[in-house]
């Protein structure tokens, strides 16, 4: 075997190497000091105690209460969580109602509907009707909890419309109605305000009579001028 610029290694070189390796193997080396063993043992015991303490702590939390009280505590916690969630949803919905009021966009003070007979005096303006959107939970909280509206459509069919006429109800006009009127027609508004009007869509039949009133979502609330 060639190693650089030296002569090839001979078997004597390897024999000498093996001899020296054997001698080095026999060298009695010092043991690691006993202080290491002591430190490691202390560290191990310390970690064992720490682990045991953490286990005991977790165990104590569940053992402090009598077993018969645990279901009661769980029930009370569940009720409290439910009440909290309901209050949160309710206040959140009320905040949204106030944020949606736009007093500067009043359409008219006196309701006039040209060429259409309506059950109440409402302001009318011809506009393209938009289909009612599905009601999201934050709008739902604005309505009374006693009467649940049709969440998919938010439409109230008028009681005196002829239900036998099923077709031809394609004419829709936009009107603004006071909240009290909407409540009287069956819309379940929770806290109607007198000086607020809501934009609604009036659906007319072929006979010219109003068939239904639909509240487009999200609700558009305007302030009534006095």
């Amino acid at each position, binding site marked *: 075997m060639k190693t650089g610029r030296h002569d090839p*290694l001979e078997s004597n070189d390897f024999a000498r190497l093996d001899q020296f390796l054997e001698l080095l*193997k026999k060298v*009695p080396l010092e043991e690691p000091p006993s202080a290491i063993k002591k430190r490691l043992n202390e560290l191990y015991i310390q970690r064992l105690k720490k682990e045991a303490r953490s286990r005991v702590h977790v165990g104590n939390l569940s053992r402090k209460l009598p077993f018969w009280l645990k279901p009661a505590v769980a029930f009370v916690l569940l009720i409290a969580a439910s009440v909290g969630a309901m209050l949160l949803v309710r206040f959140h919905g009320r905040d949204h109602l106030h944020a949606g009021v736009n007093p500067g966009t009043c359409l008219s003070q006196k309701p006039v509907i040209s060429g259409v007979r309506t059950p109440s005096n409402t302001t009318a303006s011809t506009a393209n009707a938009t289909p009612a959107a599905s009601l999201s939970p934050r709008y739902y909280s604005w309505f009374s909890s006693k009467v649940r509206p049709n969440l998919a459509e938010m439409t109230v069919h008028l009681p005196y419309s002829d239900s036998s006429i099923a077709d031809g109800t394609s004419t829709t006009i936009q009107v603004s109605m006071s909240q009290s009127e909407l409540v009287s027609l069956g819309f379940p508004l929770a806290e109607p305000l007198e000086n607020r009007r809501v934009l609604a869509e009036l659906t007319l039949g072929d006979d010219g009579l109003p068939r239904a009133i639909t509240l487009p979502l999200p609700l558009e609330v305007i302030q009534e001028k006095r």
Partner: protein
Amino acid sequence: MLRFWTGKGLHGLLDDSSSDAQLAERLVQRDECAFLDLYDRHRHSVHRFLIHMSGSITIAEELTQEVFVIVLNALFNGKFARFDPKKGTLEGYLLGIARNLARREHGRSVRLVSLEGILEAPGGKGAASGLGQDDGLWDDLVLRSDVRRLQAAILELPPHYREVVVLCSLQERSYQDAARILQCSEGTIASRMNRARALLADKLRTSGPNARGTSQA
């Protein structure tokens, strides 16, 4: 052949495997004496390996402690559960950690290597006293000089050659064990061993009192 490489024989290997499994189980079960048993059983092997790898007793002592602290941490953070006695021995596991620490220490290369500490260890257990009693052919001074030259040559080897020499020649590990500890194939171990032996033989020849390499070149 197996006995030649392991120094224990097949029965010893099986005994180690079963006792390793028991000891590992005791460690996982948080037996108070298990960790000390682990230390007592393997401290010598780990310490010796680190002495030959670092060339310093002081560094070897620090690293030996660090090896067992790492095992301790692994024990309490759940990583020790990955140790499988069927795939390797606890000694191999510890030597693997020691090898990584020795490499890290070698990478720092800021510490001074003290060969004197190895050969003239306190308490009269130096190389000269031990060797002189075993072999009457060698004078103490010659022995000390030769062994010191060999140690210097081993420390000058690249780490991947040094690991193989220390494990297979000085620690009497089989190629299979060394391959498992060093995470490479047995063929790689054999190749490194041959190359390391050639390098060591060449260094001994050129640095000895009867050096002829450079004079004849």
